[in-house]
């Protein structure tokens, strides 16, 4: 234990000395933007009606890449679902769960996580964030609810894995439609500003960027929540279904 402490302290000393030496040698963060970065900073608001350069690059400038990426994720999920075929998350006869203390604290935390995740997703075109971080943050609520309240808590509220997969499919279809709709007016696929309005009733929606963010949020949140439900299936029930073929 003492040896490892000495090694760690030595490493810390070396790291601090290295950072000190780098500063002493005159290493500075590059303050001037490169040409490409400068283009995005100056033109994002005009090209995409969004002040968030990252969201604009992901969903507009390089939008087609992101659509293909989402499609890959979609088909990967189809493969995953094939493994879980016919297996359904079922409630226990006697609901199990953790203590009242953890249940109450989870209730409070879940509310906060849900609020923050919606903010991350719906503000994704204005501030850092977006559909994927928001959706995965919301999915944490489902991941917490299943072990702490038992899977019955979700099934009793009518949240089943079938419904969640349906929501995911609908959200991804809507995402695809948002990308495809400009084609009917003869524009390229994944067109943003020439087809969608930048603001509605005075609210900046950055054209299609906020729509993509919202649908991605729904898709990611429901997909991961369904995963939490599938993982609650006991090993024996699952094996029975797989062996039956």
């Amino acid at each position: 234990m003492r040896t490892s402490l000495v090694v760690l302290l030595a490493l810390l000393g070396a790291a601090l000395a290295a950072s000190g030496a780098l500063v002493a040698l005159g290493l500075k963060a590059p303050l001037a933007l490169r040409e490409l970065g400068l283009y995005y900073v100056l033109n994002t608001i005009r090209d995409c009606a969004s002040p968030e350069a990252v969201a604009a690059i992901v969903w507009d400038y390089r939008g087609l890449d992101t659509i293909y990426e989402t499609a890959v994720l979609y088909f990967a999920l189809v493969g995953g679902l094939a493994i879980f075929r016919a297996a359904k998350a079922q409630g226990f006869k006697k609901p199990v769960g953790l203590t009242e203390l953890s249940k109450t604290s989870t209730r409070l935390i879940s509310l906060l996580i849900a609020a923050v995740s919606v903010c991350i997703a719906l503000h994704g075109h204005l501030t850092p964030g977006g559909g994927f971080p928001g959706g995965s943050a919301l999915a944490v609520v489902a991941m917490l609810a299943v072990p702490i309240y038992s899977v019955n808590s979700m099934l009793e509220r009518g949240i089943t894995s079938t419904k969640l997969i349906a929501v995911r499919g609908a959200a991804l279809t809507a995402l695809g439609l948002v990308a495809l709709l400009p084609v009917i007016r003869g524009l390229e696929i994944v067109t943003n500003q020439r087809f969608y309005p930048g603001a509605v009733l005075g609210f900046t929606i950055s054209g299609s960027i906020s729509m993509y963010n919202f649908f991605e949020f729904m898709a990611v949140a429901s997909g991961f929540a369904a995963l939490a439900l599938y993982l609650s299936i006991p090993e024996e029930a699952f094996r029975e279904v797989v062996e039956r073929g």
Partner: protein
Amino acid sequence: MIVTLLLLAVAALLSLVFVYLAVFERDLMKAIVFSAGQSICYSIMLHAMAAPDITMTYVAVSVGLYSALLVFVVSKTERYEEV
């Protein structure tokens, strides 16, 4: 500038400590907690490097989802690792 570099150095080293602890821990639940600690260090580093978008995704996935998923996986096997 120096503060950023110091923060990066300390967070990187702390993440190394967490990785060491996670690899050598026999209790898999504790190993998951150490792994989440390592992820927190990484998100501090990402934030120090001024990448808030990546930080948000990284925190949600690696601290929240990944840890929760591993807890599920450990619940399907044994909690203590045997040598």
